[in-house]
């Protein structure tokens, strides 16, 4: 670093998240580190520095940290998007939402016309029938797109797909198909909808193409571009990559070593994805520790273990305490599903805890939060350890009492604030009812109970866009425009902390990123308006100019 030139970025305003110097107008960078911060007229700062004033009309913040997304989000862009909500692709192109089946078909027709090879399968993603009125998408609609080319439309839930007649023919799906989940019309003929993995896997070509796309090198680049486009400088791939498999580490290494790769990636170690013997949690922990100790580079980080304990609220599979679900579909069992037997949690958590790792556990329902919190409590009783930062992920129904307990145990939360906008109306009307929905994703409660928390998109479940997530936490406005639980709104400063320093904290990177201080990495989010100055309901409309990552400038793509 010594000897490298010093660059002084001059900005309209720099928000530091360092309480000692909350704002500044210039920041000096040498190599990938911050070496000075202060007033742009300060002669001490200007001395011997090249002045870079391209941000003189912009607002700089510590780079946003998206602590829960999946690299799959980048991989899906290999295929056309047919979801209900507008979405921006990695090149900055805006894909308008498809509000009805006609527009889904129209988009696919348009795309199909540009495809060369007439036998190549057309794959699309993002369909969410919950939002579309009228008929459900079926093979007959997709046959309007093509009767000769196989078509596979992957739904947003990840549990369903709809295929056309040619795909059914090719996959041997007919009226006699014995697999449950092959949906039939009134005459017993399959209508193209395939429910759950066993049925979807009959159309293996479609499913495995998506699987390949997700793990591809392009997926990793697109994931980086998506992050850059929304001002994110560090993103966690929370348990998509199967690190125990050969080649996965190398693939990430190759991409993140590129100077142009615009984001730091924390690749979490997925407990469930190890492929190792179940007797060997300690060996798994050893592998995760080795990755952290020996394989980290500037833009590739480890040390987080991901567990998944329950399902999702909108899928009625999250584990809720009584009174359980508000208006579940007919035939529902009452409560959700466990993905790990609750009795096993103490042992699993203890293994990773002992090894010095930080456990991030997917808990959508409060009953799941409870089981995880208790497991952490037991692990701590047996192996006292300071500063573990074990984190409740999603934390959608975590109660005030649970937050209080989490605070006393030193736990963190990462709250799924985007749910308020995308499914808030459904939560109030169908899944958990109006009262419980009002206290979902309770950022203000976490704040009151002194739990450090972050807020996330879980991309691709919802689009990655930190300003949108901040807007959700600050406004709690649903898609229909209602305010859901105004008492759980937080202020802009807290939302920014949750998106920078506190998110860095739960990824154990707050010594390097999350605030702008001398010695830390030069990671900035560059905005075109000041989030402290715009009206709260306009936060998501602030244009993102781009980012700086380790002193390297990355401009966002625009349409």
């Amino acid at each position, binding site marked *: 670093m010594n000897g490298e030139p010093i660059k002084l970025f001059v900005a309209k305003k720099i928000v530091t998240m360092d309480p000692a110097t909350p704002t500044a107008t210039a920041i000096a960078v040498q190599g990938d580190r911050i070496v000075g911060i202060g007033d742009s007229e300060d002669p001490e700062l200007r001395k011997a520095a090249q002045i870079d004033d391209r941000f003189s009309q912009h607002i700089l913040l510590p780079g946003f940290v998206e602590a829960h997304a999946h690299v799959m989000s980048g991989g899906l862009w290999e295929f056309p998007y047919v979801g209900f909500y507008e979405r921006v692709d990695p090149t900055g192109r805006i894909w308008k939402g498809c509000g009805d089946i006609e527009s889904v078909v129209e988009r696919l027709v348009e795309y199909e016309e540009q495809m060369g090879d007439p036998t190549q399968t057309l794959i699309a993603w993002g369909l969410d029938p919950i939002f579309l009125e009228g008929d459900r998408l079926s093979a007959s609609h997709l046959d309007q797109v093509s009767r000769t080319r196989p078509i596979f439309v992957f739904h947003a839930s990840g549990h369903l797909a709809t295929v056309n007649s040619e795909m059914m023919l090719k996959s041997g799906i007919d009226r006699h198909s*014995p697999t449950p*989940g092959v949906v039939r019309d009134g005459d017993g003929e399959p209508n193209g909808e395939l429910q759950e993995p066993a049925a979807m896997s009959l159309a293996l070509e479609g499913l495995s193409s998506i699987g390949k796309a997700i793990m591809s090198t392009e997926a990793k680049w697109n994931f980086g571009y998506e992050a850059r486009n929304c001002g994110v400088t560090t993103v966690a791939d929370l348990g998509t990559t199967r690190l125990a498999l050969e080649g996965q580490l190398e693939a990430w290494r190759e991409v993140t070593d590129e100077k142009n790769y615009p984001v730091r990636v924390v690749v979490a170690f997925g407990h469930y994805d190890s492929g190792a013997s179940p007797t060997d949690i300690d060996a798994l922990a050893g592998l995760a520790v080795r990755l952290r100790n020996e394989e980290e580079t500037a833009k590739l980080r480890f040390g987080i273990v991901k567990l998944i304990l329950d399902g999702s609220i909108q899928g009625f599979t999250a584990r809720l305490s009584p009174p359980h679900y508000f208006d579940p579909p007919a035939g529902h069992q009452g409560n959700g599903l466990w993905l790990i037997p609750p009795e096993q949690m103490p042992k699993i958590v203890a293994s990773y805890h002992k090894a010095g790792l930080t456990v991030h556990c997917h808990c959508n329902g409060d009953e799941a939060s409870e089981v995880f919190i208790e497991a952490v409590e037991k692990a701590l009783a047996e192996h006292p350890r300071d500063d573990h930062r074990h984190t409740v992920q999603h934390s959608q129904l975590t109660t005030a009492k649970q937050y209080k307990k989490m605070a006393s145990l030193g736990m963190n939360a990462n709250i799924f604030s985007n749910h308020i906008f995308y499914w808030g109306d459904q939560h109030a009307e169908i899944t958990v009812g109006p009262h419980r929905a009002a206290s979902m994703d309770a950022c203000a409660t976490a704040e009151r109970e002194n739990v450090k928390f972050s807020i996330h998109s879980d991309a691709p479940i919802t689009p990655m866009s930190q300003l949108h997530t901040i807007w959700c936490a600050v406004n709690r406005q649903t898609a229909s425009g209602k305010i859901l639980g105004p008492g759980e709104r937080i202020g802009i400063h807290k939302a920014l902390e949750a998106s920078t320093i506190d998110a860095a904290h739960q990824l154990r990177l707050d010594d390097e990123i999350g605030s702008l201080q001398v010695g830390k990495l030069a990671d900035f989010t560059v905005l075109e308006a000041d989030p402290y100055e715009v009206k709260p309901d306009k936060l998501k409309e602030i244009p993102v100019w781009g980012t700086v990552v380790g002193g390297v400038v990355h401009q966002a793509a625009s349409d």
Partner: protein
Amino acid sequence: MSLSQAAIEVTVVGGYLGAGKTTLMNHILTESKDPVAVLINDFGDINIDSELIQSVDGNSIALTNGCICCSLVDGYVSALEELRCREPRPKRIIVEASGVADPASVAAYGHAPGFYLNAVVVMVDGANVMEQLNDSLVAQTVAVQIATADLIALNKKDLLSDFTTVRNELKKLNAEALITDCTNSEIDLDLLFGSEVVTKAAVSVEMNQFDSRSHTSSDPISRQALTEWIERLPDEVQRAKGVLRLDEEPEIPMVFQLVGRRWNLRALAERKNPPLGNQIVVVGPKGLVPEDWDVGLR
């Protein structure tokens, strides 16, 4: 039965943590002389037995239990694909569902082309099941598993003080499944597989309590005749299976399975070189299956 030449038979073993799934898999591997491959769920019991299973032979594949949004082509699909391509193809595979899984979701894979489903066996921990069914955290998981079963194996009989109460509780959750009791997961393989199983020499005397009888014919059967035959089956017939043709669509080979009073009839997914005609095997306690059991089919 020649069905196994067209397709691999899949048996799903479910049940909550500690119920004896792994022990059952070991029991099958030890007893069966036919080649059996086992798919072990890496999320199931944390049990040293799984190491034993893995060392038995090269026929076990550990499954991973990724969520669908993480690994799209999940462990089951790739493991089944591997087995389908193996030379020689195993005749049977046993798939272990995770301790919290609804075995039905695993059984759904048993209908993929190249496979057919034998039965869903759910192991029940006799010593702890009543407690589990009263535990708000796990009651629903355990109850759903029991309700999904074709064959319920009430295990750890030796540790069970009130057998009738437990059995009645299981009946309440699943009136139709066949309930058998055992210790150390030692289920009779004839009952489990619904056909005569060639066992290794070291079979305990106790194991051979069942007889099997078979029926073959060539003319397609009417759906009505089949249903009536099933309704009139003597209670002694605890298990029946086969492949047959219905007169409404004689070109489609249909797989028939009956366990206790639960039965189903589904098309065979793979129709290359399917078995011809009707072949049905029934299993019942030694000496108790009447001679004329198949009158209705003739």
